[in-house]
């Protein structure tokens, strides 16, 4: 096991290195650097001005050496300044990452709070009307285009009923706890509805599978209470797949909230990275994307470990064979 983990961490580190270089190049290859834009907007800039500015921003060096310089200082924790915001990259990213993690974390929490009981509920009553209804609702949740749902929610809850604000982080000049919560409700509804469907179905499927296992049947045959069996044995056994699933989707945390963040003007990291890329904020985009990469890799790592832990067919040995 330890061997596997060490190997896996090492491999992931190599992937991070390669991906960071690929991302660096990708952003570097994107046409339209800030100086080009500046020259286009200012007719009086001469070619000397443009080379002066390129030198100032370090854009005159070849991509590889720029990457090398950047990677060196990044290793020491210096990620540089955001070109657009004129502030250290991490000063911008931290609070926004906090906002995104808060939103995504809460929505995941609510989604699980919905998915686990309902999934179990459906699993112990397979092929009944309730089961079908739950299934239908789950699919509905998965199948709605996210920005369409956001639009409908805004129109209904904030314009027609005026229960919740339509977007933003807090009422200007207010910003107490209740106020902040009220701004979180609508984006949470959209995100939760979107994730809960998939999770519920997943929970139900796993639960069904576990309930068919021999030891559960034995426990029941021995006269154990159905609910007790379900909770004690089956529930515990279905948790690993859920964690796996969350692990795999971890990489989507930063990008997944982009639509919701845009629709509700939520100051999150998804929107920040998106704007940084479009606005050619090299450092900010790069660091943001790297964090997203790290999340993906960590998630996939967790998923792998869970998969191995729960599926005896995939043994550690098979990883090292041949």
């Amino acid at each position, binding site marked *: 096991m330890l061997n596997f983990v060490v190997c896996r961490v090492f491999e992931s580190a190599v992937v991070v290195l390669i991906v960071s270089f690929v991302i660096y190049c990708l952003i570097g290859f994107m046409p339209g650097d800030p100086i080009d834009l500046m020259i286009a907007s*200012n007719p*009086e800039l001469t070619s000397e001005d443009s080379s002066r500015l390129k030198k100032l921003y370090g854009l005159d060096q070849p991509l590889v050496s720029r990457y090398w310089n950047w990677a060196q200082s990044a290793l020491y924790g210096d990620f540089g300044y955001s070109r657009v915001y004129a502030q250290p990259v991490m000063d911008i990213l931290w609070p926004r990452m906090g906002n995104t993690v808060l939103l995504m974390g809460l929505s995941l929490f609510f989604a699980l709070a919905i998915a686990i009981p309902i999934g179990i509920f459906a699993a112990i009553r397979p092929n009944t009307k309730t089961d079908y209804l739950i299934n239908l609702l789950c699919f509905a949740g998965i199948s709605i285009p996210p920005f369409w749902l956001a639009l409908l929610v805004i129109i209904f809850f904030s314009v027609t*009923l*005026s229960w919740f604000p*339509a977007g933003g982080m807090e*009422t200007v000049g207010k910003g107490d706890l209740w106020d902040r919560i*009220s701004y979180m409700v609508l984006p949470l509804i959209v995100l939760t509805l979107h994730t809960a469907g998939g999770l519920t179905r997943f929970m139900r499927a796993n639960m069904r599978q576990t309930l068919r296992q021999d030891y559960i049947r034995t426990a029941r045959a021995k006269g154990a209470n159905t609910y007790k069996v379900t909770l004690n044995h089956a529930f515990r056994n279905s948790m690993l797949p859920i964690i796996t699933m969350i692990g795999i989707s971890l990489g989507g945390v930063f990008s997944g909230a982009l639509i919701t963040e845009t629709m509700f003007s939520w100051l999150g990291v998804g929107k920040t990275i998106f704007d940084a890329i479009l606005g050619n904020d090299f450092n900010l985009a790069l660091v943001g994307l790297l964090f997203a990469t790290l999340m993906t890799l960590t998630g996939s790592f967790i998923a792998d470990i869970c998969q191995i832990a729960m599926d005896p067919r995939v043994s550690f040995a098979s990883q090292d064979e041949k």
Partner: protein
Amino acid sequence: MRPDQKSANKIASLLLFFCLMWNMPAYPKDTLVIGVTQFPNNFNPLINSMMAKSYILAFARKRMTLYDENWNLVCVLCDMLPSIQNGMAVFGKKSYGNDGVSVTFRLDKRAVWGDGTPITTKDVLFTWKVGKHKLTGVSDYEIFRRISNIEILDSHSFIMHLDQQTCDFANLDNFQLLPAHIEAKNFSIPAEYRNRSAYETETTNPGLWFGPYVVNKVVPGSHVIFEQNKFWWGRKPHFKRITVLAIENTASITANLLAGGIDMIAGEIGLTIDQALAFQQRYGERFEFLYKPSLIYEHIDFNFDNPILKDRRVRQALLYSVDRNAISSQLFKGHQPVAHSNINPLDASYNQDVKKYAFNPQKARKLLDEAGWSTNKDGLRYNHKGEALRFELMTTSGDKTRELIQQVLQSQWRHVGVGVRIKNQPPRVYFGNTINQRRFKSLAMYAWLSAPNSLPRSQLHSAMIPSKTNGWSGQNFPGFTDPRMDKMLDEAEKKCEQPAQRKLRKRLQQLYAEELPALPLYFRATSHIIPKWLNGIEPTGHQYSTANWVEHWGVKE
């Protein structure tokens, strides 16, 4: 399962609480919340100019000079506008090069920074020092480049020597004053100034501001709160506090307006005209809608390297076959007037008597036949060599209005046998790569934003064609070359006296309409959505935002 009565009650009261909170009517009208669709990236007035920033900064800063609502240049921080007549501007002073201008400015004695420090020539000198430094990365470098020296007379007057003769010597709008008493220490390492400037590190320091308001709080990406400036020397503004709140998505900014989260949507960085019109259709009676055609000239550049487009008849035929009146009246309810040349009808030198191209598909077909595109096959024209009359029409992707117009053009050109393929790119690629390096194959739609009375020299002079050899500088993106145009532009730079200057500009418009270096579409309008109780907002039509006159805003009795 039995519903839990207690928690049901709790939820109900919670919902009630929210309802009450969001339906608070009649609030005191001494505060104003303005919705905008873009948040400024940074706050230093010299670095990175963008519309959102110039709108927001206008609440807390004044420019040296400004165009007023009648499109006349006026002094804001100085006490008298220099001119040749009043002797404050002198052409060709020998000691500073024989071609230059020397202009005397006197700062308003009442002007002080928001911490009470007087605004003096020290600040002027410091601003010049920052602006001209090669490592600062100033976006509007031109104003600093052309100043060859600043001569200080006393604490409030100075003479500015410009290295070349221009007619807009008195225009100092982009000479954005910086407070020397705060910023001098941050400029010790010029290359790092952009990150160390107090505008970024301590944005709420009142000493940085000198408008009717000072910045009180900034939540990056979300909002800026302005409070009244205790040291403001001009007319006292009505509102105690103004908040500018950024909400990017159109649907949610309008929803916020309806829900009362914001009072108004700024026209300068708010809704596009078609969005505003669609909103007005439904909620027209609840708000005031102000539309003002502005100096944003929407047009399509022809690429003159394309042999087909070199033929003037083809260019004219393309214009004849577009029903611009229908576009203006049907899509924009007439608020965006059809453009006949690059000069706005509100401009003093506007010429009415230029060649106009009313919608006339017959004439277009005839012109195309004459130009050799006479074979018609499957609705597409071919010439005798068998080449198809087909163009690539480019614009910025994600701009809904332009994409709408594109589809109209595509459909209307198809009716006269011209094929069009649409190819759109994100703005950064489009402006930073395709347009500026003239990589568009035939047609490119975008807009020019200009100042009143500005001479389109960089867009029309043949010396201003961007190329690899000149480092892609210049804005003559079509590659338009006409010696008559060059001559007129050169003359207009020198002849500042009024009848001569105006006459030249009128002839220039005639030539423009005759030769069509670009296909004029319309002048874009700003659309302000303001509450019925607010008055004093008067869109000017030029690039200076309404926020420059914030002290005139008030509440209707």
